[in-house]
Structures are given as C-alpha cells and as structure tokens.
C-alpha cells in the first residue's frame, strides 16, 4: 500500500507540475487528498505492520501525526487555492506551488512512518527541499534571503544529525549490530559506552531542532514564517514542527532505556526553558503579526520539550500538546491570510478595527487568542496543565515558577497586540474596503473546536494512540 502511495504522490507531483489547466489541477489535488486519506485509514487499521522491506512501519505515533497532517492538508490546500486566486498568480507559478506542496506532504508522511533512522534522515532532507520552493514563492528580495538562510542552516542542521547517526552506529557497532531500525536499536544499547550515546544525542538534537524550531536553531523557522505564503506558514509551524518532534521523540525513546536518561532530560529542560525565554524576549517587542506567532510557536515547542523531559504524565501531555497546537496554530495562519488581504500589511501598528471590517474573521481571531494562550475552554489548557503537573512532580519548582512568569508575559504581549488589532479604531488613508467571504473562516472554527473537543473530551481511539506511543518510553 505504501509503495503505491509513493508512486501516486510522485506521479501527481509531476502531473501538477506540467499541467496548466485549472480544472485538471483541482482534480489532481482531489485525487491526492483521497490517496492521503486512504493511507491514513489504511495505516490505522494495520497498526504495527511494516512496509517496503521494513523501511516504513505504521506505529501509533506516526499514525497520530499522519492524521493531523491529513486533516491539515485539506485546509491548507483549500487556503492555498484562495491565496493564489487572490494574488492572481500565473498558471505556471500555481503549478510549481502545488507540485511542491504535494511533494512536501508526501515527504512529511514518509518521515512520520519511517522505521529506520537512516530513512528518516533522508526524507527529512526532502522536506527541506520542497518547503524551500514554497517559501520562495513570492519571489522577492526578502523571500530569497529567507529561503537561502532556511536551506543553508537546515542543511548544516541535517549534517549535524548525520554526524549523530554516525556516532550512534559507532555505539551499535560495539554491540555487534548493524541494524539501524527504531525497533531494534534499544535492545543493543544496554551495556554500551555512554560517551558515544551522549555525543550522538547532542548532535541529533541540534540537527533535528532545525525542523522542530527549538532553541539552538530556532531563528530560521522564524525568518521563514515571515516571508512564506500564510498557508505554508501554517504548515511550517505545525506539521513540519511535528516532523522535528517525531524525530526528537524517536531519538529520545531510543536512548530512554539507558543510563543517560537523566542527562538527556537535563538537556531537553535547558533547550525548552531557553526556547520559552527567547520567545518571551522577542514577543514583547515584535511588531510583525507573523513573527509574533512564529515566536509563539517557539514557546509551545519549548513547553513540549519540557513536558518530554519531565517524564511521567509529561510524555502524554507533550504529544497531546503537539496535536492541539497543530490545529490551533494552523487556524492562526489561515486567519492571517485574511487579515493581510484586509489591511495589506503584517505590521500590527498599521492595523485596527478588524471587528468592523471582517466580523467572522475577528470572532475567529478572538477564539484563537483564547486557544493559543491556553485559557480554560481551549484544549491546550489541559495539555499545558498536565505539563506543569509533571514539572511539579519531577521537583523542578524553580523552573516551574520561572516558566509561569514568562508565560504570563507572553500572554500579556499577545493580548496587547491582538486586541489592538481587533478593537482600536484605525482609519487608513485611501480606505479601500475589502470584502472577505465569511465562509473562509469556517475552517478555523472547525479546527479550533476540534482542538477544544480533543482536549476536553478525547475519544478512546485518540487516547489509545497516544498511550501506545508513550509505551515506547521509559516509565
């Protein structure tokens, strides 16, 4: 099944690239979405089986994020279509855009389902290349700069990850194993020189944090957000960060049965705390709507890393947090596309009175504010609460208090900016009025309510997937 999926994705990618007819393009995209959905359901009904000579397998963590990706593919393709229609891009650029998008979704699917660390590394490269095409879509000076930085630093990151893989194999070699699959590695890591493991972990986490957008390598993701088309920002901030998370989670789960577990937790706590700290520093003074939400993503990645490091209920909370964050952050960027069409700028100072210009959109934005700051009706309240509980139970009281203070500052900064955009009267000179179809906000309401539903009343199958994924880790 997975082989067929790969062939279909490649063919559809090529088809979209050469095709110039709008109707056929829509048809191809619909075929792609059905293939994607079919794969997700097929994988769900065939959990714990492997494909393509053991290079890919359907495990709970991968399937969970595959479902998130599938749902967001529908909305992202829909909003990309709107975005391209409003920009009046020519047919050639639209073809390149959608072809790259299809390849990107296919590559991310491969990352979630890959069964060996080598294969995962290769497909992560593929995501970098395809997303670079999309970041460069507007073809301005700034996009070129951001694309160059993104590709260059991502490739250095991916090189570091490769060094990590080499060190890991060095460790495995001492245990007389040449098998690099995730299911096989942990059994060989019991009595091994921990020096190699520590070195491997450091390099792998620095490398994969380019994708997850964690502290040491967060800057490029922020720059890429600034210039990418909003539907692509939604992808960079959600599913692509999930790619990084899956990579780091798998690395962590490989080594969580060895004696270096406390040391790894220290590293992750440090990365997480510094992520939140840096995001607080910048979010207070930032005046660019997309950068503001990019830093907010950084904060949430920091929280996830801390959840992972705290252990116990934190493992569960970290995965839940990633899923809910994906839904909420995606709707943020779909909404930002509308805001940009209304005000023709991303600078927060030059916006205002959004309620009078686009009522539905403004309501969505208000709901987004409640969700992203994790106030009670939002599902993220549950996951953040669990993360804090695990932090408390692992006796990190000082860190706990510091993070609460930083989160309060972030909440204040987000509130100040979002409310000024929604409520402050602002008369722009020229004053052309852009009408936004209220139905364009529908996807945001659906995603936000999905986040609330999954957080407050998670269905059994969803809980089962997360619990299975946590089983990989040390109790």
């Amino acid at each position, binding site marked *: 099944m997975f082989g067929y999926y790969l062939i279909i994705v490649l063919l559809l990618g090529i088809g979209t690239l050469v095709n110039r007819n709008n109707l056929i393009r829509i048809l191809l995209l619909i075929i792609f979405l059905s293939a994607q959905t079919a794969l997700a359901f097929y994988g769900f009904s065939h959990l714990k089986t492997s494909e393509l000579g053991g290079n890919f397998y359907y495990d709970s963590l991968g399937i969970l994020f595959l479902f998130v990706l599938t749902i967001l593919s529908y909305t992202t393709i829909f909003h990309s279509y709107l975005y391209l229609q409003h920009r009046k891009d020519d047919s050639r650029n639209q073809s390149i855009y959608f072809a790259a998008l299809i390849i990107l979704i296919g590559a991310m699917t491969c990352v979630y389902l890959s069964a060996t660390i080598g294969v995962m590394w290769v497909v992560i*490269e593929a995501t970098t*290349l395809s997303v670079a095409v999309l970041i460069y879509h507007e073809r301005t000076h700034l996009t*070129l*700069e951001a694309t160059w930085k993104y*590709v260059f630093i991502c490739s250095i990151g991916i090189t570091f990850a490769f060094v990590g893989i080499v060190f890991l194999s060095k460790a495995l070699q001492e245990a007389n194993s040449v098998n690099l699959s995730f299911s096989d590695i942990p059994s060989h890591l019991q009595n091994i020189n921990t*020096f190699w493991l520590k070195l491997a972990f450091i390099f792998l986490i620095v490398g994969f944090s380019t994708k997850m957008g964690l502290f040491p390598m967060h800057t490029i993701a922020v720059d890429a957000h600034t210039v990418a088309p909003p539907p692509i920002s939604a992808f960079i901030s959600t599913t692509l960060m999930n790619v990084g998370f899956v990579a780091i989670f798998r690395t962590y789960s490989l080594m969580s049965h060895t004696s270096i577990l406390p040391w790894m937790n220290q590293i992750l706590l440090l990365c997480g705390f510094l992520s939140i700290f840096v995001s607080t520093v910048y979010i207070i003074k930032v005046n660019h709507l997309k950068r503001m939400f990019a830093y907010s993503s950084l904060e949430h990645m920091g929280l996830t890393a801390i959840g992972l490091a705290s252990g116990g209920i934190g493992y569960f909370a970290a995965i839940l947090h990633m899923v809910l964050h994906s839904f909420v952050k995606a709707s943020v960027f779909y909404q930002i596309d509308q805001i940009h069409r209304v005000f023709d700028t991303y600078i927060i100072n030059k916006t205002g009175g959004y309620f009078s210009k686009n009522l539905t959109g403004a309501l969505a934005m208000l709901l987004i504010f409640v969700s992203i700051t994790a106030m009670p009706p939002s599902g993220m309240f549950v996951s953040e609460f669990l993360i804090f509980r695990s932090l408390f139970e692992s006796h990190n009281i000082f860190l706990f208090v510091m993070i609460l203070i930083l989160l309060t500052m972030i909440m204040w900064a987000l509130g100040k900016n979002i409310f000024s955009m929604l409520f402050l009267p602002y008369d722009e000179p020229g004053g052309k009025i852009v009408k936004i179809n209220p139905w364009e906000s529908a996807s945001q309401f659906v995603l936000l309510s999905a986040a609330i539903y999954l957080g407050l009343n998670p269905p059994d199958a969803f809980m089962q997937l997360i619990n299975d994924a946590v089983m990989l880790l040390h109790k």
Partner: protein
Amino acid sequence: MINVLLITFLITLFFIAIANRLMTYIKVLAFQGVILFTVVFIQLNDINTVNLILILMETIFFKSLAVPLFLAYIIKHNKITREAEPYLPNFISLIIVTMICVVSILLVNSIKDNELDKIFFVVALSALFTGLYFIISRRKIITHVMGYLIIENGIFVLSLALGSEMTMLVNIGIMLDIFVSVLVLGIFTNRIGDTFEAMSVDNLSNLKD
C-alpha cells in the same frame, strides 16, 4: 597509505586557511575529492561491487568534477571578485585552524575505545569545525557554500570510518552530497548573483526584529 592520504587531507585545510583566491579554494575542493576517491578505493574493499562503483563514481564525478566546475562557472558568470575577503587576516586563520586540529586530536585521544580509528575521527572533526570556521569568517555567500562542502567532505571521511560494516551510512552520505548539489544548483542558477549584487552576506540582514 590511508594515513598518508588522510594527513594530506588535513594539510589541504591549512592550505585553504591561507589561500587568497576563490579559484584556489575550488582547486583544493577538487583535490579533496580525489583524495576521498582513493581512500574509498582502499578502505571499502569488502563491500559489494555495484555499491563500490556507485560510491567511487560519486566521489570522482560529484566531488572532484561537477561541483568545482559549477562553482567556477558561477564565479565567472556572476563576475564575483577573485579575492576571498576574510574578516580576519590569513595568519590568524592559520592559527585558528591549527588550534582546531590540536583540539580535535586531544578530544579523540581522550576517548577510551580500543576499536577506534583515531585518524579518521581526527580528520573528520577537524574538517567539520574548520568548515564552520570558514562559514563564519568569510564574507561572500559562495565561500559559505565552500565551507559547507568542506564540512561535507569531513562527514564523508567520518562515514568511511564505519563504512566497511555499514555501507548504508556511506550511501546516506552520498544522499547528502546530491542534496547539496541540488541546493547549490537551485539557489545559484543566476538568482542570487542577479539579485544580491555583491554576493555578500552583508546583504542578508533585512530579516530581523
């Protein structure tokens, strides 16, 4: 024999540190490709033939022909000035690269592991950090790419150290090569040269808060 080759590889790093012209950089990169070709030929003698031929082809065609020729073409086509324009004088560069080598040697010697091929690790780590140093100490975008290529050659040496048992690693290293070539092709086919007139990183500072 391998030791001689790897030490030659190390010496090329010193040579780049004091080189002035971009063409010298390109020639050294091509030379590193040839060295790697020979090392592969000697080191990976017990892997299957098809795979060996693939790796040999990759080192000789990609590393020592295609990429250097393409870089030379870019320099000519975009009329990039021939000087490397480092931020620091060459003498200090030389000292820093020496320090990097010494630190790598000390680091690798501190590992208590009998099966370790120390020379591979020393050369690989030196190349890795020297490449990073070139990236932060040179002004032009194209020298950043060259710094990255040096890092990548270093990584290739590292994967060769384990290559006899794990050919998969070497193959993945080749994927990295192809990836970088696509990167260089995609970004440099005219675009950056036409848009950033001076091809300097000073033009890459518009995105900030």
